[in-house]
C-alpha cells in the first residue's frame, strides 16, 4: 500500500552511470563565451565595470562635461560693441540677470512652474489613487494606456492642437457659448495678468497646455508611491478611529509625498526649461527657455544664455533641498 523504497529516481534516468563515475565538476562550455561567463561569475566587480562603464562615460563626458562647459561660459561676458565673447572671469553676466526685464522673466517662469506643479498634483492624485487602489486587470491596462497615449504623439502636434482649442474661434469658446457661459469666459479673460484677448494668447492658456503636457509625469510617480501603500494601512487607520479625511491627512498623503515630490521635480523642471509652449500658446512675454533661445540665437549672447540656463539648475537644487527639509523623502 505504501512504497517501501525512498523516492530517489533510479540511476537509469541520470547520465554517467553510478554515482562514483559521475564527475563533481560538469564539463565547461568552452570557447570565448564559456570562459567569459566563468570570468564574470568569479568577479562581480568585473561585471559591474562592464555594465557601468558605458553609461558613466556618457554621463561623465557628454552630459556633465557639456554642463560644465555651460557653467564656464556663464562666467564670461560679451563686448557690447563688437559682440565678441571676452574670455576672462567675470560675474557681470550674472549681474545682468538682475536687470528688471530679466528678473521678470525668471519670476514669471517660476510662478508658472509652481502653479503648474500644484495644479497637476491636485489633478493627478485622484487618478493615481484610483489606479493604485481599485484598477485591476483590464482597467489597469486602460489606465496606463490613457495616461501614456498622449506621450505617443508629437509634442508639437499637441501644442498646436491646444492652440486651436483655445483660440478665439476655437472649440472652447463655442462650448462656453453653447452652455450659455460666455459671460464666465469673458469675465475670466478680463482679469488682469491671467486674462487676455483669448485663451490662446493668455497665461491661462499657457498654464492649461503645460498642465496637459506634463500631467502624466505627475500621475505615474504618485501612482507608484500609492501602489506601495498596503490597503491594511488605510484599514488600520480607520480601525483606530480616523475618518476618511484624517486617514488622507495622516497616512495617505505622507506616504504619497515621495511620489508627489518626484512628480513635481518633473513638472517643475520641465516647465522651467520649456521654450516651445509659451512661444506657441500665450502672451509674447518671455519665459526662461525662450530667453536662452533668443540670447544664444538671434542675440548671440552665449554667456547670458548660459547664465539663464544656470537659473533652473539653482532653483531645482534649492527646491530639492527644501523638499528634503520638509520631509518629503522620509517615507522612502
Amino acid at each position, binding site marked *: 500500500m505504501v512504497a517501501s523504497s525512498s523516492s530517489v529516481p533510479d540511476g537509469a534516468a541520470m547520465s554517467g552511470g553510478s554515482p562514483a563515475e559521475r564527475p563533481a565538476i560538469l564539463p565547461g562550455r568552452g570557447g570565448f563565451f564559456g570562459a567569459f561567463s566563468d570570468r564574470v561569475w568569479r568577479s562581480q566587480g568585473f561585471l559591474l565595470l562592464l555594465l557601468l562603464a558605458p553609461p558613466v562615460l556618457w554621463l561623465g563626458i557628454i552630459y556633465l562635461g557639456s554642463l560644465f562647459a555651460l557653467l564656464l561660459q556663464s562666467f564670461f561676458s560679451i563686448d557690447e560693441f563688437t559682440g565678441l565673447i571676452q574670455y576672462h572671469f567675470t560675474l557681470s553676466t550674472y549681474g545682468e540677470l538682475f536687470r528688471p526685464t530679466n528678473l521678470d522673466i525668471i519670476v514669471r517662469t517660476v510662478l508658472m512652474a509652481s502653479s503648474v506643479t500644484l495644479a497637476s498634483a491636485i489633478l493627478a492624485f485622484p487618478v493615481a489613487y484610483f489606479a493604485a487602489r481599485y484598477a485591476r486587470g483590464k482597467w489597469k491596462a486602460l489606465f496606463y494606456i490613457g495616461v501614456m497615449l498622449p506621450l505617443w504623439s508629437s509634442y508639437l502636434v499637441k501644442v498646436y492642437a491646444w492652440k486651436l482649442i483655445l483660440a478665439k474661434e476655437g472649440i472652447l469658446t463655442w462650448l462656453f457659448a453653447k452652455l450659455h457661459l460666455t459671460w464666465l469666459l469673458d469675465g475670466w479673460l478680463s482679469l488682469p495678468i491671467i486674462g487676455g484677448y483669448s485663451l490662446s494668447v493668455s497665461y491661462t492658456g499657457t498654464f492649461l497646455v503645460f498642465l496637459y503636457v506634463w500631467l502624466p509625469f505627475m500621475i505615474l510617480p504618485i501612482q507608484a508611491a500609492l501602489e506601495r501603500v498596503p490597503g*491594511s494601512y488605510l*484599514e*488600520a487607520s*480607520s*480601525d*483606530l478611529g*480616523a475618518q476618511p479625511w484624517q486617514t488622507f491627512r*495622516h497616512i495617505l498623503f505622507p506616504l504619497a509625498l515621495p511620489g508627489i515630490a518626484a512628480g513635481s521635480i518633473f513638472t517643475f523642471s520641465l516647465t522651467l526649461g520649456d521654450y516651445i509652449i509659451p512661444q506657441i500658446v500665450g502672451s509674447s512675454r518671455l519665459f526662461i527657455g525662450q530667453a536662452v533661445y533668443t540670447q544664444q540665437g538671434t542675440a548671440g549672447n552665449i554667456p547670458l544664455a548660459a547664465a539663464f540656463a544656470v537659473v533652473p539648475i539653482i532653483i531645482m537644487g534649492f527646491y530639492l533641498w527644501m523638499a528634503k527639509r520638509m520631509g518629503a523623502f522620509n517615507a522612502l
Partner: protein
Amino acid sequence: MPSAVLFSKISRHFGAVRAIDDLDLEIAPGEFFAMLGPSGSGKTTCLRLIAGFEQPTSGHLEIFGETMEGVPPYRRNVNTVFQDYALFPHMNIAENVAYGLMIRGVGKAERLRAAGEALEMVQLPGYGARRPGQLSGGQRQRVALARALVNKPKVLLLDEPLGALDLKLREQMQEELKVLQRTLDITFVFVTHDQGEALSMADRVAVFSDGKIMQVGTPQDIYQKPRSRFVADFVGSSNVLPPDFVETLTGLSLWASLRPEAITITDQGGYEAQAISQSYLGGSTRLGLSLNGLRLNAVVPAGKPVPESGETVRIDWDRNALHLMEAS
C-alpha cells in the same frame, strides 16, 4: 448583559462566492474566542464584518447590543491587530501607538504617556523613538497589540497575529496574550488556521468550513467530541474511521473518530496491524499503521520501543475513546 458579538443569519457574498453563508454566532463578553478553519473558510471575513471593513449581504450584526448596520469602522469601539501588523512606516513606535488617541484629539503629552504605558504592558518599554522597520517581527506584533489596546476597545480582533512568528516566540506570545486578556477583561476574537493555537488559547472555538460554522465549543469538546469528519480531521491528526468498520466494532453504521494517543500497542488481544512509517517528534513518535488497509496514526511515548516498518504489531484502544459522530 448582551452578547459581545451577535451574528444572526449573516451572509456575505462576493459575487457568486459565499464567503459566509447564513451564519449564527454568539460571543460572550470577556470571552477569548477563536475562529479556526482553513484558508477561504470565511473566518477572516467574519472578523472583517465585526471590524466594519465589510458589510453583510444580509443578516443582522450586533456588538454589545448595538446594531452595526451602516456603522463605519471608525465609529466602532473595536480594534484590530492585523496579520501584517500594518504599522505606519512614517511614524515612530510611540506615534503609532498613540495614533488612535491623536485622532480622538487627546493632547500630546497625555497620549504619549498612555502610549508609553501601553508599550510597557507589551514589554517594550523605551522603544517609542524607534521606527517600525527597526523592530523584529515579534516586537512589531507587540506594538500592533499596544496600538489596539491603548484605545481600550470593547472587542479586540486578532487576524492570525502569530502567523509570521517562529515557534518559540509564538508559544511565548500565546501565553502573554492569554494573561493580557484575563487582566484587561476585554473580549478577544482571534482568527487562526493553527488548531494547536486555537485549542491552547481560546475559551471557545468555532470551526469554519466553506462559510459555515461546523462546530462551536470549548477546546475539550472540539478535540474530544468532534461532531463531523471535517472537524475530527482538521482539529488534530485524528483517525477517522468509516461506518463499515465502526459497524464491526459497535454495531452502528456511523463515522467515528479515534485520537492517535488512544491507540496503544499490546501483547495480546486487540487487532493486528502493520507498522508503515515513523516520525520522531521528540517527546513521542508518531507511528503510521495499516489495519487491513485502513490507515491509522498512533503515538508511541518516548522510552517505549518503536516498531520497525513492516513489523506486525497488536494494537488496541479503550472503547470509550471511540467517538461516534452525528454528521458525516
